[in-house]
């Protein structure tokens, strides 16, 4: 019997190693898998490359990883926020490398990795600082920039419900990067508010098919109700 459910965040992240590349879902705090990140911090590994839309908010999640000095490089679109003080301090001290990627290119590059594409040509960023030094091609009279896929060793994402085969549904705007990160990482670990029996998720509304998910961890997060 296939059962991807794992008891406890610590067990779920036990093989994440020093130097790993880790995609972390979430847009701001919506969809941020805080408990998986806490377990990763407790594991004590470092030198990580983190791929997330932001660079942490307040004291939780990605911000806590940066605060603890575990992140060598971050790939994101919007690091600077009112409560990104841990990133700001690390960046100004030269302790963290930043690869700034326009948000749509970030999504497209992650999706390209999950879909097995070698590269993409994207119109976003053409003629700007963020395309400097990159190959440009004119296709049907429009300019495109060559961008490469973003792969990762692990993805940590937060979904709403999952089953033992790894099928997932999400909740509201907490979905954001979860589905495409699940496709792009070698090992995807999803924390879910609830594990349901096989067949409970309507097959017509499954957002992430279980083939993209290796581990499902039931964790009841603060504030977010299971209903709805």
């Amino acid at each position: 019997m296939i059962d991807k459910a794992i008891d406890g965040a610590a067990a779920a992240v036990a093989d994440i190693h020093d130097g790993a590349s880790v995609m972390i879902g979430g847009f701001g705090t919506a969809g941020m898998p805080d408990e998986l990140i806490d377990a990763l911090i407790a594991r004590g590994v470092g030198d990580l490359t983190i791929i997330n839309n932001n660079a942490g908010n307040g004291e939780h999640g990605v911000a806590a990883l940066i605060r603890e000095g575990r992140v060598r490089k971050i790939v994101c679109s919007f690091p600077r926020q009112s409560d990104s003080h841990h990133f700001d301090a690390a960046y100004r001290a030269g302790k963290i490398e930043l690869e700034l990627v326009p948000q749509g290119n970030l999504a497209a590059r992650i999706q390209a990795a999950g879909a097995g594409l070698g590269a993409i040509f994207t119109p976003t960023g053409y003629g700007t600082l963020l395309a400097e030094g990159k190959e440009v091609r004119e296709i049907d009279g429009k300019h495109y920039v060559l961008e490469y896929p973003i792969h990762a060793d692990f993805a940590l994402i937060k979904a709403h419900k999952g089953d033992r085969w790894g099928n997932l549904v999400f909740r509201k705007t907490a979905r954001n990067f979860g589905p495409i990160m699940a496709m792009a990482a070698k090992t995807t670990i999803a924390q879910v508010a609830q594990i349901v029996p096989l067949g409970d998720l309507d097959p017509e509304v499954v957002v992430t098919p279980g083939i993209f998910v290796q581990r499902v961890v039931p964790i009841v997060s603060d504030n977010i109700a299971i209903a709805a």
Partner: protein
Amino acid sequence: MNRLNRDQMAARVARDIPEGAYVNLGIGLPTKVANYLPAEREIFLQSENGLLGMGPAPAPGEEDWELINAGKQAVTLLTGGCFFHHADSFAMMRGGHLDICVLGAFQVSTTGDLANWHTGAPDAIPAVGGAMDLAIGAKQTFVMMELLTKQGESKLVEECTYPLTGLGCVSRVYTDLAVFDVGPDGASVIEMVEGLTIEELQRVTGLNLNFSKSVEAA
């Protein structure tokens, strides 16, 4: 002269958003436009973090922090609205499905180049978010900004000096003093506020503006 305040600017932009339009309102000043869309007009507001059919802020105490907009504020979903992941969200822009986006700006050039993500200051931490994708993806990109900086310099310029967000992507610029069409043929004045003269607008912008389109009071 009757310089428009920020709410009046938002109301002016809202007038040009037709029924049935798919629209993304950028963070900051453009968010105000939502307050002036008439209730009887069905308009689909998109937020790049994955929702279409965005509704107003919830009542205090009713916030759901898994239902937020791109500015990370709590919002609501209209009946008929839906959620989707980030790659689909940006396909809506880049794929040309979004009709209008409204963005703020540091500078816009008369040919429609946009600078709105980075001051270029050496100590600034750069952050781009979805600005570059929105600017070049939507069918029409509107900019909404005060025409002059606090120092009195025009933000509508011959050529942007701040780092660019996109080339030739802006079609219309709404300001507190005038509304402009911009593009390959340069800047045309569509409207001026009451009491502003052509000479005065030429003087404060220092630009070669086209006034051949009918100019009405805003």
